[in-house]
């Protein structure tokens, strides 16, 4: 599975990296983020682009799994 590690990156990097990964067409994609802001931004972008997002809390970080 393709993994985007966006932990510690500030906005809008997590969104840009996820979008670039989505454009390769390879699914599912796992995105790691460490703030609620990044979690919401990535989720909003992915859902708006027609993908499904499953969110899992890992400690105080988040793992987003993006599928079609």
């Amino acid at each position, binding site marked *: 599975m393709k993994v985007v590690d966006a*932990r*510690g*990156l*500030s*906005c*809008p*990097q997590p*969104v*840009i990296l996820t*979008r670039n990964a989505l454009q390769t067409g390879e699914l599912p994609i796992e995105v790691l983020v*460490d*703030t*609620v*802001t990044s979690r*919401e*931004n990535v989720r*909003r*972008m992915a859902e*708006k682009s027609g993908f499904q997002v499953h969110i899992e809390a890992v400690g*105080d970080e988040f793992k987003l799994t993006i599928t079609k």
Partner: protein
Amino acid sequence: MSEKITTFFASRRGIVLAGVVIGVLAPLLQRLGNPPNMGICVACFERDIAGALGLHRAAVVQYIRPEIIGFVLGSLVAALLFREFKARAGSAPIVRFVLGVFAMIGALAFLGCPWRALLRLAGGDLNAILGLAGLATGIAIGVQFLKSGYDLGRSYRTYTAVGWIMPLLMVGLLLLLVFRPQFSPDGPIFFSKSGPGSLHAPLLISLSVGMIIGFLAQRTRFCTMGAMRDVILMGDTHLISGVGALLAIAVVTNLLLGQIRVGFIAQPVAHSNHLWNFLGMTLAGLAFALAGGCPGRQLFLAGEGDGDAAVFVLGMIVGAGFSHNFALAGRPDTVVEGAVKVGGFSTAGMAAIVLGLVVCLAIGFTMRQSE
């Protein structure tokens, strides 16, 4: 419950609510004593704080603005309540400091941050159009860098105490404001006796409004730079719906309070030098885009434990010192015996804007991840 509230604030209704609240409260602060078309201006208010501390000696712009303190503390409260306070630092702090310095020099050429640009427009000051156009241009340049891999690198989780430094600095400023100590016979803390620095709403009201906005903005991630950036970068209108709400509601509030006067010339604390209004905000917009947030957003981030955003804020305060000590800031239009004396901009100020643009472009070109 907490998750439900978080989802509401992350929604479009949440961000619009934040814009509406700022759009009502900022013009009200002006009515209650803040300077004209300056209900809230993050750049101007940090500049006033720099003046109060004696980092510059422009006597008309010196006051410890409680709104700034409230922004950080309101954000801190929200972050603690919702368990989002997270001390983090280490993403190129020196670069963020330099970006803060030039962001302030650019903003003070125009005489306002993006928030004030909106509030000036809502008060009928058409010079704000040039400022907002410059802001959009600067952000558009920043977006090109973002698209080609510009990135200041990761921040890392650090000691909780690191995240508390900016909130505690703000508490320190609040104590200086309340007790008004004088450190030497003619020395700081300075409080303006005339000019914009002498105009202010009552302390408790300013502080409360700042905290309410800080709380809402932390929850909703309100950001004027992010609003324009997201539209240019990916056609995302989420944040800009909050900015639009701010502008629309501020116009309505100003209409109700009779605070609108439309025109370019002799607008309050503003000048009508179109080119440098535009270029000043181009520099500011580029610096904000490269640093990942408008001046307000940097304060809210600092409140939730982001040590790098705190360094940007300190850069802006130091930048205000340079701006006024070196006479780089725009000079407002004045009315002397009925005649308008058009303000403007010094040659040194022009040189500083050009230097700032060169530095920001160099940062954009040299700091990027290779594919």
